[in-house]
């Protein structure tokens, strides 16, 4: 298994704080700007990077992430370019864990084994493939774990203890708990209920637990960071890209807007 994730979670534990996981879509709004955003994330305060692989039909995501996928695809995003982006990032940063998040079809077309080989060789640390539940583990999960990449799965408020245990089987790296029933970037969770659910999941696993969906402000990050091991922010970041584009800002200015927002969020955990 690649060790960056484990090392990072151990370091966070020593610091006595939760980590910040930042989601951006690879190639959004275009390859150059996206790389500039990616490269600056660790410096801005991101502890773990979740990089979205654009897909035309992201059915578990809300409008913000779907639009970011479309911007990326309209400007030439592809699987090869996403992997190239990770490769360039790794040349300057060999410590920050990178998780690729996406849907199965682009991987299926690319070739699952070829994808795993390429992902490992350029320094990817784990995968979140939204539409591959435990029922479809033969498609990619087993090969992924054999290859030494982390396989990260989602638990939801609707998962009962039996379901959580099927989800945890063959999970590694961390558990991504979905705070709300719904899609990304919509309503926010009630904090007390969320804490109780995270506690319930903890009784079933020793893996770190990250919480995401509907998290968009420093105060939410701070509140969730009190009981979770990491907090994920996604839609709010890609919305920052969108509004910066609408203001016709330059590549550097767009990246700064995103980085400033990440720093603001990260402050909530320090």
């Amino acid at each position, binding site marked *: 298994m690649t060790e960056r994730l484990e090392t990072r979670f151990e370091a966070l534990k020593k610091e006595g704080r939760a980590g910040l996981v930042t989601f951006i879509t690879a190639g959004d709004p275009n390859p150059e700007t996206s790389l500039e955003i990616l490269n600056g994330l660790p410096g801005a305060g991101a502890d773990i990077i979740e990089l979205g692989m654009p897909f035309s039909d992201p059915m578990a995501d809300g409008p913000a992430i779907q639009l970011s996928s479309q911007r990326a695809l309209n400007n030439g995003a592809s699987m090869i370019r996403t992997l190239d982006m990770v490769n360039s990032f790794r040349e300057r940063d060999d410590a920050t864990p990178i998780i690729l998040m996406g849907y199965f079809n682009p991987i299926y*077309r690319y070739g699952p084994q070829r994808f795993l080989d390429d992902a490992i060789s350029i320094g990817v640390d784990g995968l979140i493939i939204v539409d591959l539940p435990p029922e479809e583990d033969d498609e990619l999960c087993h090969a992924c774990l054999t290859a030494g990449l982390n396989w990260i799965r989602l638990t939801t408020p609707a998962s009962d203890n039996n379901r959580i245990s099927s989800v945890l089987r063959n999970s590694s790296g961390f558990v991504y708990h979905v705070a709300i029933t*719904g899609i990304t970037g919509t309503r926010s969770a009630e904090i007390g209920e969320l804490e109780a659910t995270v506690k319930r999941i903890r009784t079933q696993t020793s893996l770190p637990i990250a919480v995401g969906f509907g998290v968009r402000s420093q105060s939410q990050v701070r509140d969730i960071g009190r009981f979770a091991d990491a907090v994920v922010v996604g839609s709010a970041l890609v919305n920052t890209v969108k509004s910066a584009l609408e203001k016709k800002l330059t590549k550097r200015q767009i990246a700064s807007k995103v980085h400033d927002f990440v720093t603001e969020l990260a402050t909530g955990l320090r």
Partner: protein
Amino acid sequence: MNPVVPITDSYRSGPDDSGHFGIFGGRFVAETLMPLILEVNQAWQQYRNDENYLADIKYYAEHYVGRPSPLYFAKRLTEHLDGAKIYFKRDELNHTGSHKINNTLGQILLARRMKKHRIIAETGAGQHGVAAATVCALFDLPCVVYMGETDIERQAPNVFRMKLLGTEVVPVTSGTATLKDAMNEALRDWVANVEDTFYIIGTCAGPHPYPEMVREFQSIIGRETRDQIMQYENRLPDVLVACIGGGSNSIGLFHPFLDESSVQIIGVEAGGLGIDTGQHAASLTGGQPGVLHGNRTYLLQNADGQIRDAYSISAGLDYPGIGPEHSWLHEQGRIEYVSVTDQEALEAFQVCCRTEGIIPALEPSHALAHVIKIAPTMSRDQIIVMNMCGRGDKDVFAVAEALGETL
């Protein structure tokens, strides 16, 4: 009579417990959706053979939908083509004007048993949306139908029908604003409303158990056809023909005949402006296997696995995928899949109006175009059954425009 076919050699034994037809089908959905899918499957397995449930479906099918639909000998068309005898299975005579209500009826009766109080559906042409809105009015359940903005513009009469029936039609602007995006939006609604909502999928696609469930509800078409043709001709047909978008009317007609080796089965996809132009909706003829909307199946996509837009003059065939069972039957070679262009379908549409006094929907006009090609090559004692799965009232504006007429 039924030859005894060992189960392993049967084309009718799928899917397996995990919803696979060979490599196709499955449950490729987000974890957020998984508890819902499992709940639907549990209810479906519990009720699929329940006497009370089946009696309920039968009652409404007879008294409300108007089943059985006639199997009609198209005498003038047969004489016009001077070849095989042509029968139409008249599912366009169902209440709401298409086969879609066979499915919405079965699903809403299941939703009621699951104590779900809110219904959602997706629609392209609006036929499934109308069929869902209809049963929701009948059973007094609130209904939300997701429909691409592009489709709302070109299917105004059906949008108004749904509104009259008390359904809320939500325009979908994401992605390409067509049927596939409407399905994405419906899935998003479903994960956000876990407790009270049932999703009535309109075709034999989606995560398990939908492809199987929809097929079972639509198989009434083939079962009736079988009884009727035995009664009229005392033998099975030589050829079955049906059009395919997602594939629900066709699997409904075909499934009860799959193990009859004497019956040749042909599915007709929408060739749009021609397969070579890339402007079509023929997933099997012009696509590759992939994963979308919960199942592995043939999809229209680019080399990078991004889903391409489908195109057809018929909004009901305009979907970039196809039910997984069709993908399997295609690879098994049991069914022959062909395609027909917009132009050929339009010509068949007009032939049908004039020879039979039936205004067909543009969807079965595709099937008819293929019948027109093959009937003259067959002998007069051979029999073709074609599924007339929808009536054409909804299409008169589109046809007028295509023929250059102003209404």
